[in-house]
């Protein structure tokens, strides 16, 4: 089934809650009203002829200008070999959307990742905890306005230019080596009596050589 046909089915079932297929360049997508997302997903999975049984990816995109966070679903049907991109928008100030865990189990971990990195609250999720970052991390890094907190428990997230650091280290080492050499020379001069002048050495003769 082509994407257009899937869209037509969605339109007849959900009316205005599902938009038409987008006209953007690249991949096209359908925007769904966020309160209908579970119904739409279940409809896509269970309807004969559609059977989107394989959830390839769920992710999110932050749009501060439009004041929304888009949750993006890439779904596919291994039975009929067709795919679709669904999007649902949620308010950026208080992002919250129902979980589709009951439709695809794959959503459990994918939604946890979005919760962690975007701060979207998935209502009814069975295990909504941070997944990649520590539990006491402040903020949601993939949001566009995320400010780094300047470190985590004393571990800084800034460092000097490594080249500057390296040149400082080599300078110090060079100075230390020079100082050590000078000190050794002074010590040697103080401890040892002056060496006699070089003894003249007889020119080496090669015994095998027959002149």
């Amino acid at each position, binding site marked *: 089934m082509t994407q257009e046909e899937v869209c037509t089915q969605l339109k007849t079932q959900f009316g205005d809650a599902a938009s038409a297929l987008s006209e953007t360049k690249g991949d096209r997508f359908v925007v769904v009203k966020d309160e209908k997302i579970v119904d739409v997903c279940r409809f896509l999975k269970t309807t004969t002829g559609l059977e989107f049984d394989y959830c*390839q990816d769920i992710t999110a995109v932050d749009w501060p200008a439009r004041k929304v966070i888009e949750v993006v679903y890439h779904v596919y049907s291994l039975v009929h070999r067709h795919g679709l991109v669904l999007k649902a928008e949620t308010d950026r100030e208080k992002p919250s959307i129902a979980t589709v865990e009951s439709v695809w189990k794959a959503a459990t971990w994918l939604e946890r990742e979005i919760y962690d990195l975007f701060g979207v609250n998935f209502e009814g999720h069975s295990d909504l905890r941070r997944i990649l970052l520590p539990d006491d991390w402040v903020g949601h890094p*993939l949001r566009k306005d995320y400010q780094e907190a300047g470190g985590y428990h004393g571990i800084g997230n800034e460092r000097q230019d490594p080249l500057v650091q390296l040149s400082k280290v080599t300078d110090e080492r060079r100075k230390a080596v020079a100082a050590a050499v000078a000190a050794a020379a002074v010590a040697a001069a103080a401890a040892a009596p002056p060496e006699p002048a070089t003894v003249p050495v007889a020119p080496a003769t090669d015994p095998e050589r027959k002149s």
Partner: protein
Amino acid sequence: MAIDMQLDRHILRRTESSDEEIVVNFGPQHPSTHGVINFVTQTNGEVIRRSVPDIGYLHRGLEKIGEQVPYPGYMPFTDRIDYLAAMFANEGYAVAIERLLGVEAPPRAKYIRAIAGELCRISNHFISVGTMAQDIGAATPLTHALRERESINDLLEELCGARLTFNYHRIGGVAFDLPEGWAVKVLRFLDHLDSYIQEWDRLITFNKIFVKRLANVGIITREKAIDYGLAGPNLRGSGVNWDIRRDMPYGAYPDFDFDIPVGTGRFGTVGDCWDRYFVRVREMVESSKIVRQALAKLPEGDIQAKVARKLKPDAGEAVGRVESARGEMLYYVVSDGSEKAYRLRVRTGSFMAMGIIEELSHGIMVADLIAIIASLDVVAPEVDR
């Protein structure tokens, strides 16, 4: 006699249920976890009540970095997503950006990508099956596997100058053409490989102890595999005949003739650890077939399409999918018309595989958990990105 009885009681204590439950941190530093992953495991003696993976130790924010560097500059970062099969991480990113820009790599570049990718798949699968044998308790196969992998690393080093983090693909092509005389060396290695796989099968695949340790362990049914979004060999091990190379073709793959091995439950049930293992061994043979065909049909021509120096794709979004060694690798790129990605998402096979471990862990033995982790072939940096 008394000692025997004590032993019996001891064994009973360890295998039958009692009230002595403890929580073990299996990881983050453990030889069997394949990287820095922690499995918080609640056990009752040898029997696991449940095991919850705790990930994120290797999170480097690679998706955030993708929003901060220009498109071509992100290529070396993709190597770090999956260091055991970096060719696919390169290729997936290149494919995604090419789709966004609407350019296509020239045929020769596509063939070279297929050759490099399949060699990389063989090298990755050797690590996977070798470490799996080692986790189970067989030490020798890993040394054999590493030896074979070194030969491939030598070949890839000659091709692109690096052994692990290749940075070989470019948006619209590849960085270097094949070196002089390289194809002959590859063919010589493949001749060796084809006979070596038979030796490998005699060495470990059909080894009775090995089969007993894996057959009927960690069974993932077809439905469950699809529901949890597993990908690649893990999905095919459960009997799902699905491969991006054939079903959503990209690059030069439509030109090649190859089979897609699926799990059959030969020694146990479809979707057990042995099936997933065997799919990987068979895939090495198929990869060898693909490389041979690609070298035989390698077209002449450019290796790089004409691409602007400063890439500014139109606003829009695109998905690049490749069949990585660990299954479908999906790059989702959103562009706002500037020279940096507005959003870059990497979906990896390992992440999805980690999601199913808790479900599989109920009521299994500790040693079986190790077999399951090894059979799913999870790689920590790919999970955490």
